[in-house]
């Protein structure tokens, strides 16, 4: 990498350059992929995209909806609106984040400890712009210059000021989407500061004030969710059709009656899935149906708009969207009269409804819990009986950040795996110190332009390394099936793209999937293998 790219100071974000800091080097992968990406190749952007979007940060475009201004007046208005948005972030408009935000802005000791914890920074062989503090320092400098007395009076002496143009602001917006919001950096900060949270705050100001966010998570994400009922575009009639089809198909396939109770008033459990599961991994909601049925749980799905899609993309970029979605979910559970909401295998749905929504209003709603804790209890109580020899192949557990680091659910999934997987493996580091899959914060869904390349080759790189290392010499054995257990739709989406890109499943038989599929596969009552690759 050229020295110039690796010596970027925060204020250089405004530097005039076609591409400020291209990715020219990637951390090597272990064998058998050690010869890959020696000189990283990325999909060329269409010239039209280079002209109209902001590709000048690192050559990638995450925010497809961010367009260059047509005139100097438009640019001026853009800059003005951005400055106003920064002010709102530090005012009553953002009251729920003022404390953590101010702490992080006020106290960073610039010790750089957080950089060592960040997989994006590590994967790019320590490229400056991907340091957790780079984007934070840019925001800090802008805030100081425009909103603090010391910044106004003393300027650069107190580190205030960045040249604000469309280009520098758009680069900052793009940079907020080079972070998976995994908050691993916050975990190591000696002062307890949170650059992951700050990256989300930057996303927020662009979305909430300027209407700027990647279309995959806004127009085709939270807006579709609110308007149609699901981010997948699945409407209620389509859902009912899908479920009817699944009941028939899965009953036939598994040789047992698969049933999805719908809108059952007064049920004990409202099970909230990521609707993507119904379309992409139907074996996952089916596995839940089988397990809950076998354990005798009184449960239901909701067919109400939003009630069958537990995702909440607002969590990644917009408090106002997050609130609308979370409160609708809570309202649906209340209306159904269920005694608890159980979140299926979707990490950010866990965080959104069980953690974030818990302080959105003063109302104490229907309690929310994770499927993992419920299932672990069923296993502990012997309400599910297993024959673990059915899962006798290496199984490595991936810890989704939202469920583990951000919610503290660590042991139950391990207890389950110990009961059902004789060859259970940990990734290193594991548990709360895990690395993000690389698809966190919406990246799993963002495929526009060449962003897919950034996700697969950069963000998912550390995770891929962990997976290869965990299986050791077994990794390259094509006769031995291996399984990465990722109990989160978003993480599975990343594994899918990652394994497809590196032909991992096709060449080495490394599969991925959730935890419940493994559980059903190991059920003593299951006659034929549930996992497709064992059939």
């Amino acid at each position, binding site marked *: 990498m050229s020295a110039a790219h690796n010596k970027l100071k*925060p204020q250089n974000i405004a530097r005039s350059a076609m591409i400020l800091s291209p990715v020219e080097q990637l951390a090597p992968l272990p064998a058998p992929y050690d010869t890959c990406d020696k000189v990283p190749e990325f999909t060329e952007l269409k010239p039209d995209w280079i002209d109209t979007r902001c590709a000048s940060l690192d050559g990638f475009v995450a925010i497809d909806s961010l367009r260059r201004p047509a005139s100097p007046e438009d640019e001026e208005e853009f800059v003005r609106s951005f400055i106003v948005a920064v002010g709102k972030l530090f005012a009553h408009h*953002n*009251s729920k984040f003022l*404390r*953590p935000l101010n*702490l992080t802005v006020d*106290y960073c*000791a*610039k*010790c*750089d*400890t957080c950089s*060592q914890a960040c997989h994006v920074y590590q994967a790019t062989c320590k490229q400056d712009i991907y340091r957790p503090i780079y984007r934070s*320092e840019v925001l800090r400098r802008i805030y100081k210059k425009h909103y603090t007395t010391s910044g106004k009076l*003393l300027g650069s*002496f*107190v*580190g205030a000021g960045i040249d604000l143009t469309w280009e520098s602001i758009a680069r900052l917006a793009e940079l907020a989407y080079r972070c998976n919001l995994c908050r691993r950096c916050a975990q*190591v900060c*000696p002062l*307890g*500061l*949170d650059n992951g949270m700050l990256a989300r705050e930057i996303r927020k100001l662009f*979305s909430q*004030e*300027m*209407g700027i966010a990647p279309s995959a998570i806004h127009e085709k994400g939270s807006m579709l969710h609110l*308007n149609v009922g699901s981010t997948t575009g699945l409407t209620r009639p389509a859902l009912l059709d899908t479920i009817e089809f699944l009941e028939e198909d899965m009953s036939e396939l598994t040789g047992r009656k698969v049933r999805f*109770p719908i*809108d*059952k*008033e007064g049920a004990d459990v409202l099970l909230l899935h990521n609707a993507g599961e119904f379309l992409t991994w139907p074996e996952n909601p089916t596995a839940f149906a089988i397990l809950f049925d076998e354990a005798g749980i009184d449960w*239901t799905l909701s067919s109400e*708009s939003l009630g069958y899609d537990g995702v909440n993309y607002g969590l990644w970029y917009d*408090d*106002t969207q997050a609130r*609308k979605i979370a*409160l609708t979910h809570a*309202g649906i559970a209340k*209306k159904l009269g269920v005694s*608890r909401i159980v979140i299926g295998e979707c990490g950010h749905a866990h965080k959104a409804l069980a*953690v*974030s929504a*818990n*302080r959105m209003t*003063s109302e*104490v709603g229907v*309690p929310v*819990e994770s499927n993992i*804790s*419920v299932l*672990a*209890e069923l296993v502990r109580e012997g309400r599910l009986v297993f024959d673990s020899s059915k899962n006798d192949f290496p199984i490595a557990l991936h810890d989704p950040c939202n469920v*583990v*680091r951000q*919610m*503290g*659910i*660590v042991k139950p999934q391990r207890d389950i795996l110990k009961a059902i997987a004789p060859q259970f493996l940990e990734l290193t580091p594991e548990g*709360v110190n895990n690395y993000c899959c690389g698809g966190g914060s919406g990246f799993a869904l963002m495929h526009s332009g060449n962003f897919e390349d950034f996700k697969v080759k950069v963000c998912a790189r550390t995770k891929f390394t962990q997976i290869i290392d965990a299986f050791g010499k077994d990794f390259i054995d094509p006769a031995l099936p291996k399984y990465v257990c990722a109990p989160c739709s978003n993480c599975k989406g990343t594994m899918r793209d990652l394994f497809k890109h590196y032909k991992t499943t096709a060449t080495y038989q490394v599969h991925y999937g959730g935890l419940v599929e493994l559980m059903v596969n190991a059920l003593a009552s299951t006659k034929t293998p549930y996992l497709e690759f064992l059939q």
Partner: protein
Amino acid sequence: MSYIIAGFILLALLCFVLLTAYRAWKYSRLPLHARLELYPVPKEGGGRARYGGSYYEESKWWSKPRTLSKANETKDILMEMLFIRKLFDNNKGLWWVSYVFHIGIYCLFAWTVMLLVSTIWPLDVHIYTAAIAGMAGYCLATLGALGLLIRRIFDTDLRSYTTPVEYFNLILILLVLISGIISWLFVCTPFFAASQILFFTGLALSPIIYIHLALLGIMLIYIPASKMSHYVGKFFAFHKVLWDNDPNSKGSQVNLHLQKAAKAAQTQKPEWLAPHTGMVAPATEQIPTSSERGNEP
């Protein structure tokens, strides 16, 4: 002159305490924030803190009593205060200098207290303790501050992010320390100066001591206003943000705060400009329930 400097240094000490308290008060007055806990949360009881578990690991967590471990939380705080453990675990290279510096500062705090004690109550043991704490404090803090400054200047990664005021902070500390060392080594004993200040005896002191005391006073007033007051920030960042996983339940403190916040929100509308922010959540539909559809299993 000595009256002025004595008054100034006592005022500076008072300012240090009051401004620190003011800073803490300002943080504590901010509205209850969104939940941003990050595990491990040391107050989680039942052995969960060790691996980063939480009450969410139990099914129907809301119906079970929370197990909290004050002892574990206190242990974690002490480890952080006494050993700066997070830095030790994650950035050993910097930990050495930072630790030497912070231990030096702690010694200097002990020295200040013992100096006052021995001025009022001049027992040998008090005087010796003060002398040892003072020597250790000055040596370690100066070494540490020098180390921090040198690292910041020569480590290109750190240099890129360091603003002039951050060099200024370290230089100010070094000036205070060095002027102190010169004063107490070559001019007069700190016990003598302390008694002069404390009892306003008004004897003339040497100019270097005036310089030292003036710088010290400035630093004491400046620290709470600068990010050197991270001892305040650290408390809030850990206790009130990263370790705060208290759920909103009926009658809880969290619930009371949220009720207050809801009232405040009625007068202060958070107006963001993007059109979607004004959108209301969709109304729940009138979907027939399973019993109405007659397909109850």
